[in-house]
């Protein structure tokens, strides 16, 4: 099973990238081996959900918008390598998580600590253009969302009900 998960705040411009993309992906029909999930909630709760059925997923693709200082609109794809963090660092992430901070970083750190993320986890991040309050994405983020949607269709295969788009290079 493959988890395609979006992480992001609602109504926060490009920072809603992951959540908005999941909404769009859900309009398509995917093979039964692909689960499209909005994981934009307290990472502790996401861990509870993963813990319900351990080893449910062999692979995960987690999508979000994160400000890393790159060129706005840049789309990064990387393979998540579990890195040990100190107890203080993980506790800080848990404290943020349970008090409502939604973020890819917390999800990855907490997921790694509890050993619940699939070993094969890919992270796809958009460098946001507009992170102000509001509905919808900036035009550049819209373009990146379309590219990423096409890439995911090519990567994981869509059922015949919707015509597949061609894969697009990202990065």
């Amino acid at each position, binding site marked *: 099973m493959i988890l395609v998960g979006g992480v992001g705040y609602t*109504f926060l411009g490009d920072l809603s990238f992951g959540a908005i993309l999941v909404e769009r992906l859900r309009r398509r029909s995917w093979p039964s081996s692909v689960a499209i999930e909005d994981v934009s909630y307290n990472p502790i*709760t996401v861990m509870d959900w993963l813990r319900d059925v351990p080893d449910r997923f062999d692979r995960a693709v987690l999508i979000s918008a994160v400000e890393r200082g790159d060129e706005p609109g840049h789309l990064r*794809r*990387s393979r998540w390598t579990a890195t040990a963090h100190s107890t203080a660092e993980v506790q800080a992430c848990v404290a*943020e998580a349970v*008090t*409502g901070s939604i973020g890819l970083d917390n999800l990855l750190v907490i997921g790694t600590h509890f050993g619940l993320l699939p070993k094969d986890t890919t992270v796809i991040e958009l460098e946001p253009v507009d992170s102000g309050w509001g509905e919808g994405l900036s035009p550049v983020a819209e373009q990146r969302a379309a590219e990423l949607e096409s890439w995911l269709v090519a990567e994981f295969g869509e059922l015949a009900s919707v015509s597949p788009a061609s894969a697009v290079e990202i990065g």
Partner: protein
Amino acid sequence: MCFKNLPVEFDAEGRPFLREDVPDPYSITGTPHTNGEAKTLTRDQIEELLEKNGHIEQKNFDPVTRVAGALAFHTVVDSQARKVIEARSVATLFRGYEVIMMGRDPRDAIFITSRACGVCGGVHSTAAALAIEMACGVKPPPLGIVVRNLLLAIEYLYDNPLHLFLLAGPDYSEAIVSKTNPELFRRAQGTPAPHSNVHGYSTIADIMRDLNPLEGSLYLEALGMTRVAREAYVLIGGKYPHPQTIVPGGISATVTLSTLNEIYLRIQQFFDYAKRVVAIYDDICDFFYDADPRYRDVGRTSANLIDLGQWDDPDAYDATYENCGAWGEQRWATPGVIIDGKLVTTNLQHINLGLEEFVEHSFYEEWAGDGVRHATDPLGAPLSPYHPWNKSTKPRPQATSWREKYTWATAPRWDRQAMDAEASARLWNTALAQKIPSNPYIESTGHSLKLLLPAGRLPETELEWKVPDVWNAFERNRGRAYSVAYTSLVALNLWSKASDLMKAGQTAVSTKFEIPKSGTQLGVGFWGAGRGFLSHHLELEDGVVTNYQIVTPSTINASPRDPWDTPGKYEEAVLNTPILETGNGGFQGIDVLRAIRSFDPCMPCTTHIHSDEGVVTREINTCACGVD
């Protein structure tokens, strides 16, 4: 008469009126009578001390919060006298939900204001629904009211354990205490735990070990209990923390006996849990007091508390402002204001009249000069120009100045006094007022609350929360522990009432209503969050929102100084806190952190030290690998 600073008195029928002999009744030029004990110095005095004394240093506590709202804290510490001589609470982000709400359909408030909090969004949804109900004149059916109450209780059962063991608990763990106060941990190793028969720990050190973050069993158990509460909540709320089924006029979910049974299975897990939580916090608090009486000064403030009460009686609540004094006093938690430990009012209208917000030290522009929207409340009682119904939110970002403006929080005051918004305020008001509905489990004695928890694996147990003789960080945490017991018993009462209504065939959960398309309407949601007081003040004009003001418990507690230079409660608590840490690992600021965290700040308050030597922040790098 409950006001001693505002020029509001009461006639023979108890109706409030404005004194006519005060020419400028809401002027801020006078000096109100307050009972704050914290000694404060002027900024000039502080700067002179910093310049002349090497042992006086600035210590800044700066949380790392990347996305949500954040709290920072500026202090000046005298390391010889081992005390804090300046304290400034800083909310570092503007959230602006009040601005977002302008011009919208009021029903949007339920979903938009929920996002004000990532812990307890449901309380904002419900406060919004209450405000709309009052503005639109809609009363939910009894089961709608009771189920909404039940959801609130479940939110508290999520929220309070989370704070006690995941946020504040680590400050009392072996990992922290052995580093900041090694002598204290050695003492804990030799100190038997008085309530070992309840929680199973032989010594205080055993408790401290299991409070260790990530690994301690108390920490992990609390993680599990938050899940139990979330499971109960979503059975009706749909999702958490931002529910989908809260609406004006009740709820939009179907509730069956099966739903109630599923909820009961989860609530009943909190009966035994509450017994253990109380036993653990009683032992921890008393151990610190016995070890060093100066811990009674950590986080100490004057005992001024405010709460709006919550959990409505379906037979009393009619959603009107006109009757809010009566239906408020029928709530399972009595509304009230405590001054110096004494209850001065339980009347929601009076509590509302005393509310004001000031922005002298906040990054906002004044609005009082723009003219008063509402000189009186809907009952004709006088309203201050600084009252939320008269407030306009006018953000004005600028550089931080300790002399002038330094925070995005406003300074809410009641009768011009700094207040503490607390879970314990629910206990305190309800204990003193003796107005709680008759029930088999909770008794209000006038000086305490007796809580009879049903048998589970542990036997039936009566706990008693007593009004504390000092109001400090430890008592805030202890009160929160007792709140778990209190809330679980309120939930049990509510569950019984919901079951009775269903058996009687009263299964309606919502009332249809229309938003008025013309005229001006006022509404207010008098409600509460896990950590205390919550109000949403609403003004509608021709069917759209023309003013929306939210006062949260953390706004009250994190407030800066007011026009009279009275510190907010975080600031007062830190100014009264002695520096008791003894460890050799450099200044950790644990006593200050305990003081601040005891308020359960609703900010991701993973506080880190910033000293003159530099900033220590947490950096988590998720890009630990190369790009594919």
